[in-house]
């Protein structure tokens, strides 16, 4: 059995997970269960992308685990022929933490949604991220509660009319990317269900990352929130709506200008250091060059989309930095304490006899 060594790129995140003996195909990862999302649901595209991408990792499929919470997307594990647990509402990151800490030979994935991860399970998400547990979290954001049939979610926009907000929501929405950055997540990305190539690229980078990776997937719910991301998908508006973040590249978007790059750009005000969108980039503009190490800029970029559905929405990897993972540190402490080298029976004997003892003849 061979395993990835941590320094063997491209998947240091998977160091310690045994490799498959033979090449795999997407079929190897399809379970025998009938997929039961609504027709046209964005979840199908994500499932297809994941099934198509898992063979690239070259892992033994019995060493892959998907843990989900509750919601439409949390049915995901049933459709993958790996190990899987469809747990309870919001708690998947906690369950995955216990699994990841005790099993370094597993590739652990969390599948969750905007309600599951940001509302009922907000606490666990924050703590999994700040601890930097080596898990990859796929957060399907359709900005609505689908499974319970159409209430507003923590990412729904202000004023949204739903079954539970007939007069419009007065709840301020939460941005998962900025939440994750605030929680000191070491890998934070956003992608879109309909862009298979981008989705696969981001998933690949997330799998390669050692530590907690949060991937927000903008996902259409055609039944309860259809068209929530149309601006990002339609041919007419996509160029102006999607801001692709690529490491080392200037943050440009919109219809191409003279240099072939987008005419619009995110520039930094020389005086204040503030970021601002310009519609026509000028020669002396200080265009921001994307640096996933720079958390302050990542936070500012993520804020661009806060002004509403029509606002330019950055996608790609906002942040990627290296920091020791919680589970690696826990195991290292145990190793230093003598885990695996101590005779447990003898150690137990010593423990019991370790206090102030006396004998009765």
């Amino acid at each position: 059995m061979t395993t990835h060594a941590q320094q063997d790129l491209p998947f240091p995140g998977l160091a310690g997970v045994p490799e498959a003996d033979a090449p795999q195909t997407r079929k190897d990862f399809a379970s025998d269960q009938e997929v039961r999302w609504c027709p046209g649901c964005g979840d199908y595209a994500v499932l297809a992308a994941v099934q198509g991408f898992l063979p690239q990792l070259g892992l033994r499929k019995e060493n892959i685990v998907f843990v989900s919470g509750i919601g439409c997307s949390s049915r995901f594990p049933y459709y993958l022929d790996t190990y899987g647990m469809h747990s309870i509402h919001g708690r998947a990151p906690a369950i995955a933490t216990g699994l990841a800490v005790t099993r370094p030979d597993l590739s652990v994935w969390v599948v969750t949604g905007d309600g599951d991860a940001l509302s009922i399970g907000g606490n666990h998400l924050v703590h999994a991220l700040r601890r930097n547990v080596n898990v990859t979290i796929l957060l399907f954001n359709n900005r609505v509660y689908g499974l319970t049939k159409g209430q507003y979610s923590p990412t729904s926009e202000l004023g949204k009319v739903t079954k539970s907000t007939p007069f419009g929501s007065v709840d301020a929405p939460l941005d998962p990317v900025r939440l994750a950055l605030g929680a000191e997540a070491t890998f934070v990305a956003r992608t879109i269900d309909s862009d298979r190539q981008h989705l696969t690229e981001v998933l690949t980078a997330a799998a390669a990352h050692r530590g907690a990776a949060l991937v927000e997937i903008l996902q259409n719910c055609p039944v309860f929130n259809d068209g929530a991301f149309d601006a990002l998908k339609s041919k007419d508006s996509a160029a102006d709506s999607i801001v692709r973040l690529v490491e080392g590249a200037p943050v440009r978007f919109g219809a191409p200008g003279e240099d072939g790059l987008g005419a619009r750009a995110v520039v930094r005000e020389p005086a204040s250091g503030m970021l601002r969108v310009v519609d026509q980039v000028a020669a002396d503009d200080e265009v921001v060059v994307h640096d996933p190490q720079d958390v302050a800029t990542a936070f500012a970029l993520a804020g661009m989309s806060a002004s509403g559905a029509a606002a330019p929405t950055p996608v790609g990897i906002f942040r990627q930095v290296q920091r020791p993972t919680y589970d690696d540190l826990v195991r290292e402490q145990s190793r230093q304490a003598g885990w695996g080298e101590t005779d447990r029976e003898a150690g137990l004997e010593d423990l019991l006899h370790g206090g102030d003892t006396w004998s009765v003849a």
Partner: protein
Amino acid sequence: MTLTESTDGDLGEAARTAVVDVADVVVRFAGDSGDGMQLTGGRFTQETARLGNDLATLPNFPAEIRAPQGTLAGVSSFQIHFAGRQVRTPGDSPDVLVAMNPAALRANVGDLRPGATVIVDSHDFTGRSLAKAGYATDPLDDGTLGHLDVQAVDMTALTVEAVRPFGLSRKDAARTKNMFALGLVSWMYGRPVDGTVAFVKQRFARTPELRDANVAALRAGWNYGETTEAFAVTYRVKPAATPPGTYRTITGNTALSYGLVAAGVRSGLTVFAGAYPITPASDILHELSKHKALGVTTVQAEDEIAAVGAALGASYGGALGVTTTSGPGLALKAETIGLAVMLELPLVVVDVQRGGPSTGLPTKTEQADLLQALHGRNGEAPVPVVAPRSPADCFDAALEAARIAVTYRTPVLLLSDGYLANGSEPWLLPATEALPVIDPAFADGPNDGVSFLPYLRDPGTLARPWAVPGTPGLEHRIGGLEKADRTGDISYDPANHDFMVRTRQAKVERIAASLPPLEVDDPSGDATVLVVGWGSTYGPIGGACQRLREEGWRVAHVHLRHLNPLPPGLGELLHRYDRVVVPEMNLGQLSRLLRAEHLIDARSVTSVRGLPFATEELAGELEHHLREACS
């Protein structure tokens, strides 16, 4: 004999005072939270244990970390009952109260019987301190303590004087007065102090002046008893006749932690404990976190829910998942325990019960989580419940909980309580090789011809296979949705749900077949009244029954380790007696269960004062039932 440097704690009996033999003694040390009463009591316990007395202890401390000094709210105490015979409880009423300030006196004096001894540090019996404690007049002068043998000693001044050579600040010097008190009481009861001298030397190894001062204060206390005429007698409590072997004293929380470590060793599993700090369970997390070398991993989770979630995740991966909490935390964990019922994975949930509801009485004891443990989940979610009956028994109970969890693939609730958690007693150390072996019996291949069915059960135990990730060919999905029998696929089929609900229940009931026969304590064999208890009431009930028998009553006692399933033969046993009485530190939860399960007119005796039953009081209640049953 006077204690000097050269004797270094090797102390014989006092020569000039009379020595009186006593069968058993209850001593309570009481002082301000900052006075070190728990440490003093702990050292006195060690000394007493080494002399071979049987003993039981009861610490009692405020929930506040540092309540205002000198107030009733800030009083912390430690009670020890020791004897030359079997000791069942920490004792109802102290024979000796050591009170380090007016508040400690006022908070405890009401518990004393006439003639009891009070050794009081008279130093702070001045206007302001008396007022803080709520005394209008000085109780040492006003005659209100006339029924007691009061020994007022200015321990603070004597201590400060004794430690003068070591150059401490006055405050630090006065802080060693607990050692003075310990020395004095040790002298009174002929307890050697060499263990404490060694302890102090180790504890203060880096601060020689504190080390020397503490030793000096200890000796000063001893010498005070020895040389003054104030104390006319010392007492001798002979060693108890106990089975041969090696002993140590142990608290319930430590024993429970060791039991979990042992369960890991005896099953070969990693022990994974997820916990969120909560009184009085936190010490289990503290203890477990020390034992990484023995295969224990601890995670201090972000909340109670994450703690049990992480434990369940670890169990899914093939570890022994454990989560430790108290009542409020158990309420939060309910949904995850329900998931564990559905997933049919091993999980040990420890609830160290405290006074409730809500935040209740965090540092006090109660048994009011029984029905929460049994029923506190949505749906039909049966969970086995195991309860230890004494501090040392927490070790065996933890092993038993782990055995059931692993063998039957189920969450198990281990119901300790605040009294067991912090109380201590001598523990005859078990031979580790004689501890039960727990077989995880992981699934390693197909169980149905060529295919693997995750919900195909063992016909004997009804347990499903434990197939952990990483096992090739057994990839499967589980979850909280109802499972189809055998395949574990999602199923909404009415007949299947009905079958699965009944099967999960039947699996838990099957555990009864693995339980040892009930042991009934009925020395005469013809008792007409049966006292049924569970958990930490073991000591008080045993003590009360013993007292009643000494008075000629015939009374039987059975103590339940398993609350779910109830042990086989219990129904028959209950029906054999004219009356069944159930003492509990709640409003009658077990009695309600026995009534429901066995159609018996169980009589409830209840107390919810945050303290264990007092033996005398309980004996009185039981006597009332005995009289009624006999008439």
